[in-house]
């Protein structure tokens, strides 16, 4: 399998705050990569760097052989058609109805008729477990519904690469599993490569081909979920077992 996304020595800081400090990560074609890490460790920043919303201060991001930081304007815009992205906060357009949100890229980039797009939007909404809400406005939805509408929008164009920022946060356990199944389905039936960020370990083990842990601006371990579960790295161990005591919370720990 070839590499679809490669991050090489990526650095990013905001003002004086260093968020990423030499991050390296490879995602293979057709693979589902899950990144875990503490709150505020820079996972969402990582995702925005992959799709070119943020520029790294240093280092390279290579997607399908092209260096994304070297693209600009229209080329970058077109390049982004390869991606679908689910934002952590949903980021639905609140001036558009639910079906217009889901069908947004289709409305903008295809010549399909309104009826066809609406039908496609309904189909995607059905995939995330939502029916009969096509004409509602985003402000009329619950938090979990917004998240799922945003997910439907991300998958609407059936892109090559999907970026999911905490897809199951804020959902009930059954709906969370529906979303897990959906992510697996997207991967298997359409051979989509994906990068998922999550805090939900159950979901991570279910959807991950490989998992990576982000800590202090670097990926400290990558591997198949089974390998991470029996890790000898105390930091990774503390994180995936979700324990309050360990090197992450111990200020005196020597790294």
């Amino acid at each position, binding site marked *: 399998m070839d590499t679809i996304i490669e991050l090489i020595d990526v650095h990013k800081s905001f003002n004086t705050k260093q968020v990423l400090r030499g991050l390296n990560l490879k995602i293979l074609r057709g693979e589902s990569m899950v990144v875990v890490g503490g709150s505020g460790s820079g996972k969402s920043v990582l995702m925005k760097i992959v799709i*070119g919303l943020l520029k790294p201060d240093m280092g390279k991001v290579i997607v399908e052989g092209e260096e994304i930081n070297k693209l600009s304007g229209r080329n970058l*815009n077109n390049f*982004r058609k390869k991606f679908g*992205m689910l934002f952590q906060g949903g*980021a*639905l357009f*609140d*001036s558009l109805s639910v079906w217009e949100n889901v069908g*947004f890229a289709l409305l*903008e980039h295809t010549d399909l008729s309104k009826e066809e797009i609406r039908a496609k939007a309904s189909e995607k909404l059905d995939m995330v477990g939502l029916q009969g809400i096509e004409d509602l406005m985003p402000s009329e939805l619950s938090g979990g519904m917004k998240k799922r509408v945003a997910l439907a929008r991300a998958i609407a164009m059936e892109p090559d690469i999907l970026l999911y920022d905490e897809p199951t946060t804020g959902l009930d356990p059954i709906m969370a599993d529906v979303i897990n199944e959906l992510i697996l389905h997207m991967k298997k039936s359409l051979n989509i490569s994906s990068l998922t960020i999550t805090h939900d370990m159950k979901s991570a083990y279910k959807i991950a081909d490989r998992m990576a842990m982000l800590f202090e601006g670097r990926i400290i371990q990558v591997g198949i979920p089974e390998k991470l579960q029996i890790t000898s790295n105390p930091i990774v161990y503390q994180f995936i077992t979700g324990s309050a005591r360990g090197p992450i919370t111990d200020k005196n720990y020597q790294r």
Partner: protein
Amino acid sequence: MKIKEKLTSTDQKGKRSILEDIGRFFYTFLSEAGEIFILLCQAFFWLFRAPLKWKITLKQMGEVGVNSVPVTLITATFTGMVLALQSYIGFKRFNAETMVGTVVALSMVRELGPVLTGLIVAGRAGSEMAAELGTMKVTEQIDALYTLAVDPIHYLIVPRILAGIIMLPVLTILADFIGIAGGYLLSIKVLKANPVIYMRRTFDHMELSDIYIGLLKSSCFGLIISTVGCHKGLSTEGGAEGVGKATTGAVVLSSMLILISDYILTALLF
């Protein structure tokens, strides 16, 4: 000795911080002016690079134009009336009351129509643009547009700037007309002027150039209002507080720029 040392050091410190403040002010002013200019250039390129978003442009024309009609009407009526009243009081002192019509018409068409409409629309529509785009920015909707391969300049900014340029002159024509009508009604009904003479005075000294200089000015004001509103919106940072700041910032900056450019344009065009 020690006290003297202390004094000089605070003195230097005081001086430096004033210089620093001035420097910082000019720095932010210039960099903001630069950003606005770049935004304008980008919008200009997108205007020719891709087909215009007609539906959104029409919607924005409604937001800027149609929704501003009531406030424009009220402002223009009272401005016309107060102009008539004031110039009547003044001209009566040297028996030139018949000139009231001329003064009302020329002031409305050349100056007050465009400027007052500009200021009112800056407060109504400019702030609305900044608030809407600012909210989109802080809730990552602008980022979401990028990820869907849609450029926000093309999708959001071009329609708003066009709406400003097109709708401000339309509102100004309305304001001119209503202002003159307000002055006319006040003069005839309250000040008992002769309607025929008043009408003649109104139109005798007006030239076509007066009207289109006014409209040209208002078009520039429309450009200022929407470009500043969009810029403030897109550069919003930091949640609800940031949106509030962007909104006030847009109104203050565009009002200032309207008054400054009003002087420059008037001096240049006449």
